[in-house]
């Protein structure tokens, strides 16, 4: 079992001259600039979009900001709308997404927004393109490109993620429409093993998707979600996470993916949802940072955590604990439920509630922005925000 003292962030990183995610030393006269142009060993992993990919990834991984995940498929969005008594119509989905993207000043805390395909091509209720509204807010539009999870034959009832067929032309079309990053979510289940097969498939699929995305101008967000389901302890999650990330990076390398132009979307290292032993934010931070330090090369600009069923406040506290000391990569958030939950409830589908709902969204966005800077204090959080959002066997 891993001893806690080994998991403390190494003091080598505690030097005061470190600035989060950026330069190590004060500029000296004979310095060679490496940013923001793509690094030279680049032709090793070339694509005509290389410089743009690096620039986009860096823009998303900017201090004090994270991603708003609003790419719920129509079916999943339907569940959200149903929870506030609304019918799952295009008009309602459009109204809800308009509310989100138009929240005034959202771009202060949000650097990127992941959209579902319908939304990428939609207009707001006042007729502006969703994509344009986001860009005006200084938020990079992204697009979910996977086609969902299906059963993995030959596995122990595990899933794999579909979507590679025709991915190249689709990605090119999304780029034309204004998307600049992509997202592909695959899952790994601890109660089901995970089997070697499931882990390899997850990693390989991500690597292929990432290579195709970069080839078509989209920064790939690499998301192997290790599901919260299960009664396993935090050490077991740690083991599995290390295995998964070792596979992912090896296959990304074999597929010649350029690491300066990707983002990661991992799950934090926590006990399973049904484990009797809970973990404090400090423990989650220690385990998760240890995982990152042992598996993630510093060329990757940003690590945007998923919330996976944690409550709004939990997700913020855990992120804050991870940002108490400088990290070699931008450590931030890519939250859906943990940003939208209270906002959705406040809206309830009524136009007169839009302002309050947007306010609620901004409160969560700001809290997570502070957490990214390691400055979140948790003052004034509502009971609503502390409610857990874990749903067993959750299907997106």
């Amino acid at each position, binding site marked *: 079992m*891993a001893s806690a003292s*080994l998991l403390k962030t190494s003091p080598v990183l505690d030097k005061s001259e470190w600035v989060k995610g950026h330069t190590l030393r004060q500029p000296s006269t004979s310095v060679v600039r490496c940013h923001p142009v793509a690094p*030279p060993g*680049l032709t090793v992993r070339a694509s005509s979009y290389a410089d743009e990919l690096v620039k986009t990834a860096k823009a998303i991984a900017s201090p004090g900001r994270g991603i708003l995940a609003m790419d719920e498929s129509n079916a999943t969005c339907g569940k959200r709308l149903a929870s506030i008594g609304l019918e799952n119509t295009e008009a309602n989905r459009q109204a809800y997404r308009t509310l989100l993207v138009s929240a005034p000043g959202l771009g202060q805390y949000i650097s990127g927004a992941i959209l579902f395909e319908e939304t990428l091509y939609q207009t707001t209720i006042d007729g502006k393109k969703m994509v344009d509204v986001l860009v005006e807010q200084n938020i990079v539009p992204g697009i979910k490109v996977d086609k969902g999870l299906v059963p993995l034959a030959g596995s122990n009832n595990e899933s794999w993620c579909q979507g590679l067929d025709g991915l190249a032309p689709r990605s090119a079309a999304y780029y034309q429409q204004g998307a600049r990053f992509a997202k592909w979510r695959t899952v790994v289940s601890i109660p089901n093993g995970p089997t070697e097969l499931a882990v390899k498939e997850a990693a390989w699929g991500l690597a292929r998707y990432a290579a195709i995305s970069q080839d078509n101008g989209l920064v790939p967000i690499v998301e192997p979600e290790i599901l919260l389901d299960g009664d396993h302890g935090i050490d077991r999650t740690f083991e599995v996470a290390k295995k998964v990330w070792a596979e992912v990076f*090896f296959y990304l390398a074999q597929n010649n993916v350029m690491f300066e132009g990707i983002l990661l979307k991992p799950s934090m290292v926590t006990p399973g949802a049904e484990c009797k032993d809970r973990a404090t934010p400090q423990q989650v931070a220690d385990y998760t940072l240890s995982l*990152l330090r042992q598996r993630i*090369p510093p*060329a990757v600009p940003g690590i945007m955590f998923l919330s996976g069923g944690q409550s709004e406040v939990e997700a913020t506290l855990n992120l804050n604990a991870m940002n108490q000391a400088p990290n070699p990569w931008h450590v931030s958030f890519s939250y859906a439920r943990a940003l939208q939950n209270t906002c959705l409830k406040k809206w309830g589908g009524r136009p007169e509630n839009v302002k309050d709902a947007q306010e609620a969204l901004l409160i969560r966005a700001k809290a997570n922005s502070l957490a990214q800077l390691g400055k979140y204090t948790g003052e004034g959080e509502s009971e609503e925000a502390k409610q857990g959002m874990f749903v067993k066997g959750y299907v997106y």
Partner: protein
Amino acid sequence: MSAFVGKYAEELIKNAKYIATPGKGILAADESTGTIGKRLSSINVENIESNRQALRELLFTSPNALSCLSGVILFEETLYQKTSDGKPFVEILEENNVIPGIKVDKGTVEIAGTNGETTTQGFDSLGARCQQYYKAGARFAKWRAVLKIGPNEPSELAIQQNAQGLARYAIICQENGLVPIVEPEVLTDGPHDIKKCAAVTETVLAAVYKALNDHHVLLEGTLLKPNMVTPGSDSPKVAPEVIAQYTVTALRRTVPPAVPGIVFLSGGQSEEEATQNLDAMNKLEVLKPWTLSFSFGRALQQSTLKTWAGKKANVGKAQEAFLSRCKANSEATLGKYSGGSAGGLASESLFVEGYKY
């Protein structure tokens, strides 16, 4: 399974971190008897134990040089040797806060079916040997794997074989209290350009870290000894800043931050070249979460050896030459080298085609 956390874990982490102290580096003085013979014959000195002992004594008693070093890699014979007044070398090093290390591999052999690619030997009784070395005072080990660049090289077989070998060696060391220095050297030999070297180095390092992870090696208790990314020996030279950029990019793409230090091999570069390249890397304005330092053999000893020429009367001057190189490289690890310790000898290329240790 997660990383192996045995009884030596805390000690391994502590020692690896100490070796990676900014401003310090490693003297690779682990030339096998055969190889040191070549060095000695180049200065017309007979390859007998007393001469080997005299050379190493010269190095380890150089006034002030040891403060630039955090570790010295020794060959087995040297681990048990003493100075002329009977003081064990290991004691001198320890008294000066220099950690003794030990070469544990038993050389390379060709892999059948490849075009001269090699794998490294040395697994038999490695655990037991490590225990003995630990008892004798060693706290880190070194194992050199070699890959070459050619039209079809390195092959997938050679990469996998060497990566697995390094990982197995590394975990055995950690089980027995020695910090493993992981050395996957990509040889400079060839007409290829720096981009080719970069591509190969990145591929090799990705495979090495995959293997280390699969073998549950505790990365915080290891060090990496890679080649710098340079043009091939038959290709035009480039500026240190270019070498620095390609090298640091390759490392940023492959080496997780848990690794405390990267100690470069010099591989045939002249003393001055090696220092300048190391300095350029440390001046680069990009985030490097591991220290970048040296583990030099020839690039620290060349002028010292020539100045000594086997004569007692030259020891003082030879030690000065050694101190000069140590200081230069110490400054280079801090990005503060201002040049100027390049005497004619320091600029001499040390490249030997098809070099065999």
